[in-house]
């Protein structure tokens, strides 16, 4: 097991003011438990504001949590200090949605990659050796080595996302979090990036956590899918479970929207049981029940 999240709970706001009035807190992640197995990609799906990015940031320990437990690669990292966590953080890398803002416009590709290389435990003997490492990484993401002295603005969106992936791969992470990593690209480039990620996984010991609002895209890369809504995981199952036999009305709604481009008229508001637990319906296929 690579990552285990136990009953993660995270709220924003809700601070008591001087006069004792309390503004109500937003429950961004509400009692979420998930596991990611080694080399078993998990897709995290839901609409904007459902808490999927918050969860990613919790895994990276960029946000603290109110309660719960995070176990990464056998180590409990929940209360670990930043200093202790730093060596482990190399094993979890992230690729962001917008490659226009995730790459520093004043850095050349060489400088962007070098920054990550300088954190590597492997000490490179010479500049030439580092250069070699960078070129081989660019080759990995199907870019040519002679782009090293160019700046981000000289590249298309797809190429930029490849550079971001190359940077994330430098420290040989065990878990790569892709937060809407293809959403800003056109469908053809999306396809190329997804194929690239599959190819990388064949060569490296890497697992993906793929965050997206589009079930169709998630299906291409992931083995299992978790559907999130208002901070809770409503349904969890294999791709086939979710696509062929979606149990929760919200999953059905997402599926209709992604596949048929139709919205669903909700007869009643989605009732999310506050104390709901994921119940296993068939093997490996869970749905929330209160």
């Amino acid at each position: 097991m690579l990552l285990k999240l136990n009953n993660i709970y995270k709220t924003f706001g809700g601070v008591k003011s001087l006069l004792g009035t309390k503004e109500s807190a937003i429950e961004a992640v509400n009692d979420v438990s998930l596991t990611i197995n080694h080399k078993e990609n998990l897709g995290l799906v839901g609409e904007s504001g459902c808490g999927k990015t918050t969860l990613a940031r919790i895994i990276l320990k960029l946000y603290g949590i109110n309660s719960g437990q995070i176990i990464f690669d056998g180590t409990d990292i929940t209360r670990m200090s930043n200093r202790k966590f730093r060596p482990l953080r190399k094993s979890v890398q992230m690729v962001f949605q917008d490659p226009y803002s995730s790459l520093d416009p004043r850095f050349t590709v060489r400088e962007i990659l070098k920054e990550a290389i300088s954190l590597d435990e492997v000490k490179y003997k010479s500049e030439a050796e580092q250069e070699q490492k960078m070129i081989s990484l660019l080759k990995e993401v199907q870019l040519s080595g002679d782009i090293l002295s160019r700046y981000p603005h000289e590249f298309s969106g797809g190429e930029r996302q490849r550079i971001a992936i190359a940077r994330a791969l430098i420290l040989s992470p065990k878990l790569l979090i892709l937060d809407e990593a293809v959403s800003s690209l056109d469908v053809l480039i999306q396809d190329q990036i997804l194929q690239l990620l599959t190819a990388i996984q064949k060569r490296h010991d890497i697992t993906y956590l793929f965050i997206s609002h589009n079930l169709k895209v998630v299906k291409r890369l992931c083995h299992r899918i978790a559907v999130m809504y208002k901070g809770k995981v409503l349904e969890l199952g294999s791709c086939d479970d979710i696509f062929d036999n979606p149990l929760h009305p919200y999953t059905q709604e997402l599926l209709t929207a992604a596949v048929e481009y139709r919205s669903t008229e909700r007869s009643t508001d989605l009732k999310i049981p506050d104390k709901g637990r994921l119940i296993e319906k068939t093997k490996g296929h869970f749905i929330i029940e209160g």
Partner: protein
Amino acid sequence: MPNPIVTVQNLSVEVKQTGAKIVRNVSFSVEPESVTALVGGSGSGKTTTGMSILKLLSPALKVSSGQILYKGFNLSAFSESKMQEIRGREIGVVFQEPLYAFNPVFTIGDQIDEVLRFHTQQGVIQRKEKILHLFDLVGLPDPARIYMSYPHQLSGGMRQRAMIAQAIAADPDLIIADEPTSSLDVTLQAKIIELFHDLRSKLKLSIVLVSHDLGLVKHLSDQVIVMKQGEVVEAGKTNTVIEKPQEEYTKDLLKAVEVK
């Protein structure tokens, strides 16, 4: 057969400085009350083609040959001030990213009011009534509150609806929608597509839809123009193109949005 609203004839657009052709010999026409989709990957010239109809090309580009007829009139003969009368009044536009398309320091109501002030003779009360009615039409809840809201106070889906309200405010005959759903998540995307459907029949609109997603286009358009590197590679009725694509490129575009 009624006269087409827009006819694009052998349109070519090039970069002024280098002479590089962005759009090459593109021809198509838009029938009244129909939806035409311009489809292709990034850099295929689909947005440039769409924006040429509004004469909103970047200053670095120019139309090098061909012409665009709007209701039979040659657009190239129109002055900039004449074009200003056409934009909004005759041809509305919906951009991809509604956050950037609105001015952050004015309320939504104010910005739509500007369209009506410019294009119509209506008084203050009439205009406000019209705007509240527009909000209702595009499915925005609590129109009075939206009117007073600033762009950042609305969610992405609501901003997109507000922009559509702005585009149809002066009752244009044609809407150019450039990737109107690309910045939205799938559930909102489906709702916006349905809104376009609805508006089209209610307001007898023609729509030019620019998109990279053939799956989406399938659900909204009557004809499809597939573009690659500035050229039209395939064009025809939507059903025909989707069911029997002839070109490899079209097949690739279709394959990319299939459920595997």
